[in-house]
């Protein structure tokens, strides 16, 4: 029996600042670790604590990469570390996005704020599929233009016609000058859907954002015509153990860490109070 509460030592390999208080950290674990899009690891800083995070990239050369916001006590301590420091990793935990469902289907990725991080992991998995021909549409809303994560990369991918991108920002005096192909509006991310030309019946949607985003957008996607079994959301909770024991993450009688964190709208409809 494996001890799921025992971390594997990992070296902080690289830190790439992206936006204020949103850096990309990569870690090299002592033993290779698999981590699918939407799954998560628990990052342990010995003496400080631990927190759950999804990857923002595929595992490449053994590296686990995550975009981590400086949001609390433990992430604050992470921001003080230097390359070469040793941390602990536990995982992978949970069920991620069902990649097989995305095959031959258009992908509609909708992110709010930091929700772009796990969806960027999914996006990388889709882009890594050499046989993929279907569309990838990214709708991404943020508070202000400067807070849009992976903005340059998304614009580049759009220029290369690999993906289609639409941004929305809550507040902006002036909108950033992006490529002509990239739509950018002031407003909420669901408003990006209104004149979007796509085929709902052959689309799989993945949504990630703050709780408020889920209240409106999941059912809106179903109304537009995407089947509820093909609309996915990844839920945030206080995940401590990762293996369905400690009870902090429970919603609607289910361990979000183990049964999720990715759920379909079809599942969420039966999960009272989960969203």
């Amino acid at each position, binding site marked *: 029996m494996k001890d799921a509460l025992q971390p594997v030592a990992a070296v902080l390999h690289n830190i790439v600042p992206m936006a204020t208080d949103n850096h990309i950290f990569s870690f090299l674990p002592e033993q290779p670790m698999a981590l699918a899009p939407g799954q998560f690891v628990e990052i342990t800083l010995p003496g400080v*604590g631990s927190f759950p995070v999804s990857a923002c990239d595929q595992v490449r050369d053994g590296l686990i990469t995550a975009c981590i916001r400086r949001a609390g006590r433990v992430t604050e301590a992470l921001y003080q570390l230097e390359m070469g420091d040793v941390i602990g990793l536990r995982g992978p935990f949970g069920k991620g996005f069902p990649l097989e469902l995305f095959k031959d289907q258009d992908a509609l990725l909708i992110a709010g704020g930091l929700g772009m991080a796990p969806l960027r992991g999914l996006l990388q998995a889709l882009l890594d599929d050499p046989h993929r021909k279907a569309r990838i549409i990214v709708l991404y809303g943020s508070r202000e233009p400067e807070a849009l994560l992976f903005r340059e990369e998304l614009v580049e991918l759009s220029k290369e016609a690999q993906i289609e991108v639409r941004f929305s920002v809550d507040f902006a005096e002036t909108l950033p000058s992006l490529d002509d192909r990239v739509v950018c509006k002031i407003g909420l991310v669901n408003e990006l859907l209104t004149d979007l030309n796509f085929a709902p019946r052959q689309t799989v949607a993945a949504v990630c954002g703050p709780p408020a985003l889920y209240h409106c957008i999941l059912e809106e996607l179903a109304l537009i015509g995407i089947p509820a079994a093909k609309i996915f959301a990844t839920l945030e909770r*206080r995940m401590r153990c990762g293996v369905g*024991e400690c009870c902090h993450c429970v919603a609607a009688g289910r361990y979000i860490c183990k049964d999720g964190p990715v759920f379909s709208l079809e599942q969420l409809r039966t999960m009272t109070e989960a969203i």
Partner: protein
Amino acid sequence: MTDFLSPNYLLTPSTLDTLADAITKLSPLAPQVNADGLCRLQPLSEGVLSSQALSSFVPLKKVFLPPREKLWSFQSGQFSALKQPEPFAVVGVPLCDLQALWYLDQVFADDLPYQNRRARALVVGMPCEQDKECRCDRQLMPLAGDLFLDQEHAWALSPAGEALLRACGAGETTNKPLPWPTASAGTRPMLTEEQYRSAADAAIWAEAAKGCLSCGACSVVCPTCYCFDMLDESATDGSVTRNRSWDNCFFAEHAKVAGGHDFRSGRANRLRFRMEHKFFGFGALHGQNSCVGCGRCRTVCPVDIDLDQIATRLSGEELA
């Protein structure tokens, strides 16, 4: 349930002596009433096996899921592994706590620290005297443990228990059922999950939660409450120990995430959460009522909150 599967042996005085010797060699823990009037699970003081179970203030779970246990330590960039516990025994366990043990065995089926202790423990149940707060129900769930002993019979609850009985000379079997207390299970409320879910806005939650102090005593003494947190402790030599400690779903931080969002804000929500867990179970144990009816939570609550009373009101029955 387990009654029908548990082989029962007649105990001769010499077999009982041999068995008692074998068990006392395992430095057993037993429920004992101290001078302060509290019953605690503690090392058997005189080396003489008791003949009766007692309901300890803090239940059997503390032996397998200690209130605080070391999970690992970290020094010079290395994480250390767990130490294996020594074999031990727990005796004088009441039947309701053996059910609770079965429940925890399911929850922690893949938990190495828990299973290490379980694998090295001999758990021995004994007949109990029914208390006015007892509402046990033999049909609720199976029993865990290894042996059940009265002075004339022994029931094998596990292969290890059976092997020990045979090694101690037990041979003649009978069909005697386990001596469950005779309390009527009819006193337990019949609340369906549908009733519970449709009563999310019922006034009783706010009413009951108004008195609740969030002290969490009910969860501490509950034999099937198991939520935990993991906290680090740093020593002056630079080493770090991660401890697993009991947590409590009544505490304000329980469902709060970084950034401050609370997924179960307010006492009423937290009370409702505890009720859901107790009566309907989470994850693979969904559908399993885990209130074994020991009555500890009712006894300990400083403001007399009684989940059974809330359940009775929600299910539309009149209070007896």
